[in-house]
């Protein structure tokens, strides 16, 4: 008989809250504390909790290894591409003033996209490290 029913039910209750909180920290970072790094760590924590309670293979069905390993460089590329977009629009690298019709909106878009890049890389890095550690214990 499985004795981890409490863990399973508690995890099911807390997981949606963690994911919503990660989204809140990500998208409310302009107004309150937080940003891409914190949101990425919290979202990765949610997936890691899911993996701890329901098993590594369940977590890897939710977020496949291939997706994780694509997202690690993708976030850095998104960040760097925002800089290049600024260059192409006739501004300095990582200067967002010309990304939209006026400087304030350009800054908001720039920070939003850059935070998205940070989120993608941090989220996938935490998961990649967890998968790499947890995967070693399993004998195939």
């Amino acid at each position, binding site marked *: 008989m499985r004795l981890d029913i409490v863990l399973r039910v508690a995890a099911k209750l807390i997981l949606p809250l963690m994911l919503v909180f990660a989204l809140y*920290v990500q998208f409310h*970072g*302009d*107004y*309150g*504390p*937080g*940003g891409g*790094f*914190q949101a990425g*760590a*919290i979202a*990765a*924590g949610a997936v*890691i909790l899911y993996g*701890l309670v329901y098993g590594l293979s369940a977590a890897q069905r939710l977020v496949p290894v291939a997706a994780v*390993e694509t997202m*690690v*460089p993708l*976030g*850095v590329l998104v*960040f*760097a591409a925002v*800089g290049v977009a600024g260059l192409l629009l006739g501004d300095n*690298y*990582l*200067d*967002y003033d010309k990304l939209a019709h006026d*400087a*304030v*909106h350009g*800054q*908001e878009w*720039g*920070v939003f996209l*850059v*935070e998205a*890049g*940070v989120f993608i*890389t*941090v989220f*996938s*890095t*935490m998961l*990649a*490290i*967890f998968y*790499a*550690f*947890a*995967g*070693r*214990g399993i004998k*195939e």
Partner: protein
Amino acid sequence: MESIVILVLLTLLAAVLVAVVRTRSLFAAVVLLSAFSFLMASVMLVLDAVDVAMTEAAVGAGISAVLFLSALHLTKTTEAPPRRSALLPLAVAGITGAALLFGVSDLPPFGIAETPMHRAGPDYIARVPAETGIPNVVTAVLGSYRGFDTLGETVVVFAGALAVLALLKRRGG
């Protein structure tokens, strides 16, 4: 009031650290380190550094503890008795600690308004709302004014993932 809270938290931090050093059970050490991170996050919260507190709680207390436990799963859970004398590690730790204390003595006093960091602060607080329209100054500084630094940090995280995957990932099954 704030200084009392800080004193209590720092005392607890010291107590947890002594317990971490004295315990031989690695499992207990991991749990205590997680508690240490939560206390540290509380210290950051009292110092009004909410962003740092969130990072410390999520990464330090949560994810690192899981990674330590995964590593423990692959090894033994009690610390082996040391095979060699502890004199050399003690000397290394002592010298490093002395160097850090020497470095700390060069820091400006806590909370002094004259430091370069605090001279730049009011300038950012005045400029951020008009130039970026982002109410949270920390986000604006990290994302926009110090975009290069943040790009560098993201590359560091990326490099960390690469290093761990290169070391731990099994090739071709």
